[in-house]
């Protein structure tokens, strides 16, 4: 029975838990509810994964209404992979949130924060699982509105402008998406993704459909922070509470990338269509610019959270680079990097959150000598930093290996060169933090610091451990990514 309704439970559990948190108005209780709901969502994702592996695509009729009239939840390997990433990151962060959030907010505000957290999670899971285009828009708005609030709860007052900036850009993006969906509906009379995929090939070169595609592309690219539509991201991640930054970095952009893949490959007919558009070239170019420009900007940041945010833009560039190849290896690399980058960046934001928690600042010059006072936190930071730049034995290497392999397969040696040079820039910005943290004499403020409490260390180190575990044992990450990539290319849905 439960197994049968897993697709609905995946979304409904956090959705119902959210108002519950708002009603109890007590921080601790709300946290406990969030903990249970988020781990239950993670369990549901694992359950779905097992079912999909077992029986293939699951089609679930919401409320018993048959598609294409009713809303269909359609789970295949592609979105169950993303569900796993999103719910996994969502679950690991909650134990961390307890101390981090309680340190700054009163009981009621805490409950509000958890409400928003659960709504954001609901939205992201909903976008991923649903097979209905309009439903995508609805869930996207739920998650976005909740994230605006979560960002606006940062300790720096600049978080308000950051949230506002994101609100404007996010709304523009969502509007574009809904225009695109509307045009598709006008042309086909359906909102069901599967149904759309059946009907579009006949009319895919008509002007309204191409216009719809253009709107969707820009709207989704805004959401996934594709260069140069990334401007909302650095401030949002830099000034939001650490929990929010970690959560959004690990999930929100990843879901947008999923949408991109879903529309281009599934709805519009696989590799065949994607390569007839000018998109592969444009995407390749933008990805490369993102990889370099954002990394170089990251080098010059004095706020470490902001540096990590720019690094996210660059890493998204790696993912879209993999998509632009439109080959199985390339897509495998992209999907794997979705998984791997979620682990690394969420972990890095949690660890830098530890610094913020203890020190009250994440300015690089304030962190002098912190490696000696917070050795565990900074060791984790170094470990994930190494992974980010692609040291073998870590997840970062695996992603880059596949991205490189995909370039080699096409004989694009110059791309391999660019990938490795971009990694060098990563080394520079991570190295800056390491140097200040370990080889400067601690400032008066730093020398009084103590290591962060275990409640903050353990969740972060679960992610550090994952970065190494999945760096050598890749049958889950790469294995699933590879199958998903082949499904995407064949437009099997």
């Amino acid at each position, binding site marked *: 029975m439960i197994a049968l309704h897993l697709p609905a439970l995946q979304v409904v559990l956090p959705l119902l838990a959210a108002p519950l948190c708002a009603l109890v108005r007590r921080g601790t209780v709300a946290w406990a509810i969030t903990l249970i709901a988020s781990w239950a969502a993670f369990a549901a994702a694992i359950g779905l994964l097992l079912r999909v592996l077992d029986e293939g695509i699951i089609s679930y009729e919401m409320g018993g209404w048959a598609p294409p009239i009713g809303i269909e939840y359609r789970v295949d390997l592609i979105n169950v992979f993303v569900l796993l990433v999103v719910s996994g990151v969502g679950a690991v962060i909650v134990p961390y949130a307890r101390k981090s959030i309680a340190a700054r907010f009163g009981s009621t505000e805490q409950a509000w924060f958890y409400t928003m957290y659960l709504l954001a999670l609901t939205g992201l899971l909903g976008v991923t699982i649903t097979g209905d285009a309009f439903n995508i828009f609805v869930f996207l708005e739920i998650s976005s509105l909740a994230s605006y609030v979560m960002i606006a709860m940062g300790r720096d007052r600049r978080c308000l402008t950051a949230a506002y900036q994101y609100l404007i850009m996010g709304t523009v993006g969502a509007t574009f998406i809904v225009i695109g969906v509307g045009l598709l509906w006008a042309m086909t009379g359906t909102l069901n993704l599967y149904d759309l995929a059946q009907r579009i090939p006949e009319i895919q070169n008509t002007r309204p459909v191409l216009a719809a595609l253009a709107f969707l592309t820009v709207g989704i690219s805004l959401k996934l922070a594709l260069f140069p539509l990334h401007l909302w991201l650095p401030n949002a991640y830099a000034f939001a509470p650490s929990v929010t930054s970690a959560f959004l970095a690990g999930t929100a952009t990843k879901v947008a990338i999923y949408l991109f893949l879903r529309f281009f490959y599934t709805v519009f007919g696989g590799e065949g269509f994607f390569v007839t558009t000018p998109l592969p070239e444009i995407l390749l170019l933008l990805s490369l610019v993102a990889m370099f420009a954002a990394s170089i900007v990251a080098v010059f940041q004095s706020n470490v959270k902001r540096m990590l945010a720019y690094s996210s833009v660059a890493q998204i560039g790696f993912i879209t680079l993999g998509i632009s190849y439109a080959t199985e290896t390339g897509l495998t690399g992209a999907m794997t990097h979705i998984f791997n980058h979620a682990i690394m960046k969420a972990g890095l934001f949690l660890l830098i959150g530890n610094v913020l928690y203890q020190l009250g600042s994440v300015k690089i010059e304030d962190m002098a000598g912190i490696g000696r006072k917070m050795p565990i936190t900074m060791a984790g930071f170094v470990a994930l930093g*190494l992974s980010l*730049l*692609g*040291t*073998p*034995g870590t997840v970062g290497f*695996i992603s*880059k*290996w*596949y991205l*490189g*392999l995909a370039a*080699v*397969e096409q004989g694009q*040696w110059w791309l*391999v*060169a660019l990938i*490795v*040079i971009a*990694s*060098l820039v990563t*080394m520079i910005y991570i*190295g800056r933090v390491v*140097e200040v943290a*370990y*080889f400067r004499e601690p400032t008066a403020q730093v020398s009084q610091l103590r290591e962060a409490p275990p409640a903050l260390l353990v969740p972060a180190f679960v992610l550090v451990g994952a970065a190494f575990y999945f*760096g*050598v*044992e*890749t049958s889950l990450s*790469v294995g699933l990514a590879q199958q998903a990539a082949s499904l995407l290319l064949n437009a099997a849905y």
Partner: protein
Amino acid sequence: MIAALLIPLVGAVLIVLTGRQPNLRETVTLVTALLMFASVTQIVAGVIDGGRPEVFALDVAPGLSLAFQAEPLGMLFALIASFLWIVNSIYSIGYMRGNREPRQTQFYVAFAVALAATMGIALSANLFTLFIFYEVLTLSTYPLVAHHADAKARSGARTYLMILIGTSIVFFIPALLWTLALAGTLDFKPGGILVGAATAQTTGLLLALFAFGIGKAAVMPFHRWLPSAMVAPTPVSALLHAVAVVKAGVFSILKVVVYIFGPEHLLATGASEWLVYLATFSLLAASVVALTKDNLKARLAYSTVSQLSYIVLGAAIATPLALVGAAMHVATHAFGKITLFFVAGAIHTATHKTEVSQLNGIGRAMPFTMAAFFIGALSIIGLPPLGGAWSKLYIALGGMDGDYGFVVAALMISSVLNVAYLMPIVVRAFFTPPDDGVEVTSIKEAPWLCVIPLCFTALACGVLFFLPDRLEVFLGGIMGGN
């Protein structure tokens, strides 16, 4: 075989745990070193009998797996590194305490991890495994280079890391990708895996990626990290930057030449010819630079750059004699150079002198130390009856085999240059009166924990002179399969 890898790691953990009791901590280091050496000798015994034990760990991705295999080249390297670790640990205790160095626990931990990485490199069964441990070695030695934590150490350590990691990312990873794309595997196989899979041109380019990607071999123009690394405490320079790290570099190149390209493939295509010229240039140029250095450690560092190029040269010539000579030079140079670095450290500990020009008359106060320096220097120069004579002879003979007559001339010029930058130190020490004019009447050596190891390694240089046939037979195994 896994034991050889795990012992130093367990040691590292124990060192952390015993960090508050220095005596216990040093005991742990020594016991770990002894145990590791014992486990290595055990594997070596098996390899001499013709065994090639293998351990397969896991598959990471298609074509990428973690696996270990013992073979003569790797075992020679493992044997040298693990043996000298014992000697070096004794020396370290004397040096670190004599100089009252800070953060000693961190020092010993990083050392143990570095040795574990060295074992991983020596025992790797494929390029991917080698690459992983290669990077671990770079990272674990970074804190050792930056040990003094002042501005100089920081900038030295930064150069160290940037060049080593940079070259490995920019050249080594693409080389791995390309090799996998060409051969479909990264396994080390006698005779190479690229025969028939790569044209002469491809082979030459790929060799370039490897030769520069393995920055630890310090082939010019990527040699700058080695002099920079001299900001480290001397035991680090001695074991890591005369033995473990740099030898990991040239060892990797040898391994790539022998087991990836295959010497016959290289000879047939002539793809390594350019590297012969580059290595010859590198070895001469570095010797000339060494002449100009007054700082003793800097002079030794450039001498190391030069000597490493001998090994790269041997690998590039790729005739059997040259390869055996190159492998032997790994051993003979290790013993010779570690002695010289030990001496530099002992002088620093006893007198705080670091420049060559300050060493006038020091031989009278430190006769044992400077005598050891003399022996080590002779071995580096390549004079009998010391080990260095054989390896240089083999490389020269190999060069003749490969029709590179100029190599013989270059080696002779280089030996003369070696004399020119090493012997003045000995002359100053023994025959020039001290600067202050005060006759030294009593012996004032460094702590005996420093002096005994350096005398010991100096003697070992002599012992190596009598072992070339054994080494040759042992190393003959690497040509197996042809």
